[in-house]
């Protein structure tokens, strides 16, 4: 039955494919100038971008379906809310994975990135990333009533996730205070995990903090999304909803405190940053700026497309 539900891909296609195509072009433009090491450094953040983008598409589609009464139609069929949500996650996963894979392939073939790191931890991180940010999208869809609300909330979540996590500017580049705040964001762990995997070929075991926290978070947000799921716009949001939503912050609140004490992530981010800036200081000092800027300007265009 899941497979049957995945038929819904048809609709997701338009959402999911239009954006990555634009992304490919921008990606190529950005990195055409980059040397292999630079591309390698930015590959993690770029993939994280794509993975995190899941929550835009999922929340928007689900809210749209609810507004149009599409979900009502599913409700009279023997379909449960978890079926509905799981199928959204699966469909999103099936669509996002090939795109990420293509980007990795491009990086290797066109831009000659020296190594893509440990493939197993790369795969695991990308998978938990897609599922957890997809679930976040489902929660957003459940707590908002109209498309406008969804877009506002998405925007509010998206901006800190991309700017304060190291996805746009390298974490080591940011002020100390912002770095500390970034440690409370799930995106930081995804970006750092991917970056470490690609640059240092980190094993899944050494990335256990990132993988476990994202996996826990995925489970929690999915559970929440199922609790909060509404088939119709008129159905009210349960009163305990807000409390439950706050609960999604717990895993990363704890992890944030721990990591703020240990400084591990920050040190890793700094050494990664130094590793690609130092070996060729003269020609690449401009290279640091160049990839950073197009990435930042590309971000609004992404929002427009969603």
């Amino acid at each position, binding site marked *: *039955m899941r497979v*049957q*539900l995945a*038929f*819904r891909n*048809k*609709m997701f296609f*338009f959402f999911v494919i239009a954006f990555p195509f634009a992304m490919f072009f921008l990606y190529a433009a950005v990195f055409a100038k980059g040397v292999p090491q630079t591309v390698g450094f930015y590959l993690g953040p770029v993939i994280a971008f794509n993975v995190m983008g899941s929550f835009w598409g999922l929340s928007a589609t689900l809210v749209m*379906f609810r507004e*149009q*009464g*599409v979900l*009502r*139609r599913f*409700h*009279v*069929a*023997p*379909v*449960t809310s978890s079926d509905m949500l799981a199928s959204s996650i699966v469909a999103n996963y099936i669509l996002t994975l090939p795109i990420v894979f293509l980007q990795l392939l491009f990086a290797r073939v066109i831009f000659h990135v020296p190594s893509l790191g440990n493939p197993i931890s790369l795969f695991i991180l990308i998978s938990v990333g897609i599922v957890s940010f997809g679930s976040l999208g489902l929660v957003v869809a459940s707590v908002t009533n109209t498309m406008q609300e969804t877009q506002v909330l998405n925007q509010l979540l998206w901006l800190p996730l991309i700017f304060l996590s190291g996805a746009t500017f390298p974490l080591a580049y940011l002020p100390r205070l912002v770095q500390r705040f970034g440690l409370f964001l799930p995106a930081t762990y995804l970006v750092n995990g991917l970056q470490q995997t690609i640059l240092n070929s980190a094993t899944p075991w050494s990335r256990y903090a990132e993988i476990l926290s994202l996996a826990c978070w995925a489970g929690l947000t999915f559970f929440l999304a199922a609790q909060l799921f509404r*088939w119709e716009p008129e159905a009210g949001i349960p009163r305990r909803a807000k409390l439950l939503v706050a609960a999604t912050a717990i895993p990363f609140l704890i992890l944030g405190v721990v990591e703020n004490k240990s400084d591990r992530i920050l040190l890793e981010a700094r050494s990664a940053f130094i590793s690609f800036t130092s070996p060729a200081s003269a020609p690449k000092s401009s290279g640091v700026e160049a990839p950073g800027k197009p990435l930042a300007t590309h971000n609004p265009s992404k929002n427009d497309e969603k």
Partner: protein
Amino acid sequence: MPEPILQVDNLVKHYGDVQAVRGVSFSVDEGEVFGLLGPNGAGKTTTVEILEGLRSPDSGSVRVCGLDPQVSSRELKHEIGASLQATALPDKLRVMEALRLFAGFYKRRRDPEELLKRFGLEEKRNTYYGQLSGGQKQRLALAMALLNDPRVLFFDEPTAGLDPQVRREIYDVIEELRREKKTILMTTHYIEEAERLCDRVAIVDHGRVIALGSPRELKQRSGGKTRIEVKLARPVTNGTLQGLEGVADAREVDGTYVLHTQRPPQAIVSLVKHLEADGNELVSLEIFTPSLEDVFIEMTGRRLRDGETLPASRACESSSPFATRCSFSS
């Protein structure tokens, strides 16, 4: 006596302060087409959605195919088929894909090809849902309701918002299902629809069943009287029309005088005579053979389509067998 397939007892449902359903009871036997007839906001849709297991009742009991929709909602959904109000499919889903997708949800299923043929959608099989016309969308909705070969069908306002021609197409489809002895619970606010399609009708108003029976029984209950509706140049005092020869009863509804009579010619003659003597003028006069509308007016003192002006359906009624319309202008 077999157990009824649908059983509703004293159903109550509130939305905040609004009492949508206040103690509705009825039952539907297998093979019957049962109609809930009433104005918008009478509580028909709420009742149907509780039966489908989409909403929970505040009190009262409901059994559908021997199941409680609240307890065994999933099993129930395998047994029922429904076309809902205010529902849609994704615009980019093709007709055949929609049928296949939904067929996949059921244990027992019918051949989507056969349904496509039956509902005249063969040519549209690869059309996007978003490109279908209103009538085609509705036919697809009915086809989808039949996908699991359900024991009970729920059609919520199957013809609302469609033009008369398309409405008749939908009637044909439902009449065919009726001949096949399908059990159907439908809601409507069109009298024509209820009279033509339903074996039995419950007239619903303000969340209550105010009359229940076959269309013929209900009409007989209203005395089988012809209804004459007149508009006058000047209002007349209460009760004057009531006393006219041949007029059984008369009342004013929204500025129109509604007279019931068993002897229409006499009633009209005495009415015209009275108006002449009174110096009043007849602005318009319409004659209706007995319909469920009369039952509704008699029970509530209001029109069924209260507050809703439907010129299209008025015009179409003149060609329907239930109303003969003749307008005088002076």
